């Protein structure tokens, strides 16, 4: 949980950005407990048509109902909850689902830094990422 001074600093930063004419301001305010970042495999990230992505399913079974499609960074439940080749995950709308483990790999910074990816609650009340 962030301290109040940290939250005030974030709010001030957003205010300054809005005053500068930026149409949107989105800041991470605190981590989502119990989840870590993983990445989709590179082939999936290059797909330009969403329906060609690996599905997020309601249960760890290929016959389970389609919940939706993943984004590039997948929030997986930690400790890892794996069943029948599927991993439990959290979608950006807060919905839980399952994705085939074969489409995931450990998250690594793309820019060769020591940055950490943190699944986060965002300043607009939704979910998102913070990579620092």
């Amino acid at each position, binding site marked *: 949980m962030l301290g109040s001074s940290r939250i005030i600093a974030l709010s001030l930063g957003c205010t300054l950005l809005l005053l500068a004419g930026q149409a949107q301001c989105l800041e991470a305010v605190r981590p989502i407990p119990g989840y870590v970042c993983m990445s989709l495999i590179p082939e999936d990230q290059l797909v330009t048509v969403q329906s060609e992505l690996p599905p997020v399913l309601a249960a760890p079974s290929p016959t389970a109902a389609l919940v939706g499609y993943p984004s590039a960074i997948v929030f997986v439940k930690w400790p890892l909850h794996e069943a029948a080749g599927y991993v439990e995950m959290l979608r950006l709308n807060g919905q839980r689902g399952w994705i085939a483990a074969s489409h995931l790999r450990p998250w690594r910074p793309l820019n060769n830094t020591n*940055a950490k990816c943190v699944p986060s609650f965002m300043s607009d009340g939704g979910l998102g990422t913070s990579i620092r």
Partner: protein
Amino acid sequence: MKPRMFSSHSAFAALPPRSRTRPGGIVAATACAVAALAAVPASGQVAVTLNGPPVQVRPYVPEPGLPDVTIPLGTLNPFPSDPSGGGSPGDPSGGGGGGGGGSPGNVAPSDSLSTMLIQPWGIAAVANAQSLGVNPSALAATCVLESGCQNVSGGTYTGAFQMGLAAYTDGLATAESINSSLASQVVPGDGRSDPTSAAIAAAGYLIQGARALQAAGIANPTVLDVRSYYNFTPTIGVQVARANDSDSMSNYLSPAVMQANRITPNETVGQWRTSISTKIGTAAGQTVMI
């Protein structure tokens, strides 16, 4: 085959279809007709001095099942001013909308829309976007960012909307699933270099982007929200839309993608969002769907 833009009994029926879509062509044709009439002596007619401004042709786009789009000459933007919109038309600062952007159903004027409307295919693109429930300003902002609304050819990404073939095909399918009558305006095969076809496909792709972001928890995605989906592929686009402002773009995009999109190595997500807002002005905070 393109639909006819003007009725067959109009004075412009003899013009080729493309010319009939251009307000400038109509003005020229009107001027020619007036000049021809003036050159023929007519008995019993009395010369009348013009009192007031000359009569102007009002081009319109008839679309079966849809209201006409009427655009008085001299007006670049057919939509009334929206009092709730962020900033005034022509304001390049991007307005001052908050994270949620404009209200649903908001079709506000924008600099981008004016840019698209002066293209020969702009009026048809606006009418088609509206028939799909897409904010014409969102479509206009896309072509402004991709090509300056010019029909740029060549490469993997081509046309005014700079689409890849897979995205074009899929966007078209989405659009036609909503309004099947649009198929009559789409050229067969790869129509990315035909701006009318490409605009329909781009509108369909924007719908996909809006739906993906809605599924990611953004109730009413703005043009700025959907920009990353259109620009960087679906999975990366959704991620960037939900990224922390102060994160580096290099944490979300590969070096090759960064370079191809002229994103500097130290650019933050917030700075990228600001740069897009600056380029498309008031459209940035408007919702994609109306």
